[in-house]
């Protein structure tokens, strides 16, 4: 009960900070739109296959950009203050929940932007939404944890990309397959297996983040 209250308070704090820095999320959205624009003016006609790959690449880079600041924006004295107030489990959980919400919003907005500029080849919308949901969950867990790691190092922005891209490859491969299925690029009878795999990866990552975050936080 105590944990839930703590998490909700921390979540409110995150949302408040985000609200005060509206330009940050606006910047990410602008990034998405301009990427789509550049890519589509370079490749004039886009097959559903390329659409699928492009969508996830744009989401990947947008989420790294969005999440790299999640532990850097607070200065060290404020972090010390949090540390004395709340336990690390609540902090990592709140960050992950908030970041998955942010990524979910981002993904849906980019989906809308893709639809606007490049058309919508998605045949099975429900499945595609499920892929987006599971994907933003997995991305947010991995990127939040890596952001926590790289925030402790010197050059955090570069380190974030180097450390996190190899780690999200299993998630991205499964996502590509799942959404290719939603676009009817391939006929797969065992979609639920991919969904289960994605869920299992998310669970594994969140468990590792739970166990390991207290070691990171203690400073």
């Amino acid at each position: 009960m105590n944990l839930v209250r703590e998490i909700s308070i921390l979540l409110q704090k995150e949302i408040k900070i985000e609200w005060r820095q509206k330009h940050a999320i606006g910047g990410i959205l602008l990034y998405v739109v301009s990427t789509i624009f550049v890519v589509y003016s370079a490749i004039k006609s886009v097959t559903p296959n390329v659409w699928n790959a492009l969508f996830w690449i744009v989401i990947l880079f947008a989420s790294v950009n969005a999440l790299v600041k999640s532990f850097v924006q607070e200065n060290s004295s404020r972090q010390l203050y949090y540390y004395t107030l709340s336990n690390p489990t609540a902090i990592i959980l709140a960050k992950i929940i908030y970041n998955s919400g942010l990524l979910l919003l981002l993904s849906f907005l980019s989906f809308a932007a893709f639809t606007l500029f490049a058309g919508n080849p998605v045949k099975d919308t429900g499945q595609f939404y499920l892929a987006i949901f599971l994907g933003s969950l997995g991305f947010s867990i991995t990127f939040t944890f890596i952001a926590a790691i790289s925030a402790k190092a010197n050059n955090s922005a570069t380190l974030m990309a180097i450390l996190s891209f190899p780690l999200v490859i299993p998630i991205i491969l499964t996502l590509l397959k799942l959404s290719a299925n939603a676009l009817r690029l391939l006929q797969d009878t065992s979609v639920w297996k991919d969904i289960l795999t994605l869920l299992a990866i998310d669970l594994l990552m969140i468990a590792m983040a739970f166990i390991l975050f207290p070691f990171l936080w203690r400073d």
Partner: protein
Amino acid sequence: MIRFCLSNLKPRKFIFMRKYWWKILGVILIIYSFTLGLLVPLKPGISSIDPGSMRTASSYQMEIVGYNTFYTRAQDAVRVWLKYDSIHALAASKTRVVNDRSLVADFDIPKYLPTNDRVGVVSVIVDDDYNGFSVVPSTVFITQDSVDKDIVAGSSAWKQGRIGNIHSKDQFNFPFRVQLSETIRNLYFHVPFWFSMFIIFIAGITQSIGYLSTNKLEYDYKSMSFTLVGTVFGIIGLCTGMIWAKDTWGTYWSWQEVKMNMTAIALLIYLSYFILRHSFDDDERRARISAVFSIFAFAAMIALLYVVPRMVSSLHPGSGGNPALGADDLDNSMRLVFYPAIIGWTLLGVWMASLIYRMQVLRDKLYDY
């Protein structure tokens, strides 16, 4: 005096052995795997057969090229069969040994095949008392002009050549595969690096866990040393694999190939581990955060190991439609060299890691003063 020397020598020698036995064992095992892996010849086999397709009711002179064979040394005549299935086979009417490596067998193909299909596939079996027998499975296509409805004629014609009196040779040889031929020996020079890499990485992870639970810097140094050696082994495995792939699959790098890309990703993760280590000034902090990262990355790698093989088929042995080396190809003679090679390289890797660890400890002492 002599007594004093002996009493002095004995325990020291004992200590030497107690300290270094595993290093000696590792080196001996590696030398053993190199010697046996390069010296033991391949089993006599058949590298090519011509013609590869025939028609019924005609005669053929089949040219068979052997590998590591000594047909001239055979006491009795070399016998050749076309084998259709377990009861239907056709013996060569005459065989002629040209030289040690080549053989000509005359076949009179009957009018009908023992089947209703227009085309039948037969295996070729060659047997003699010196080289033993060798089989080329499903290699010659035979087309029949007209189909015998009740198969009786074809069946009786093909039943005449009974395969019997096969000479099997129990020599210590490695198996012969046409696609691989001598490169089958790479099993001892390429695959052990993957196995020892994984063992050494797991050792590094245990040291990372040890650091997080004790906060002693030695564990961090050990974990770093193991990871470095594991990465070196991974690079060796990748480079040797690329040479072998160029020969067997035709390209150095195959994007279709799962295991190759998976290990490349694993190496990327561990290279980024070293970059992470370099971006800290404080020893304690570097130790803690790199330990956390290596454990997290290991969990991600487990996910990778599970996910990636399900995505695309592999060219590596053990997955469908692969002509190379499969689990059934790893026969006892190969195991006898393969497993010692794994143990040997793992021990050598631990030795290398211990050198790096000791260097790190020395450096630590230097900065303490």
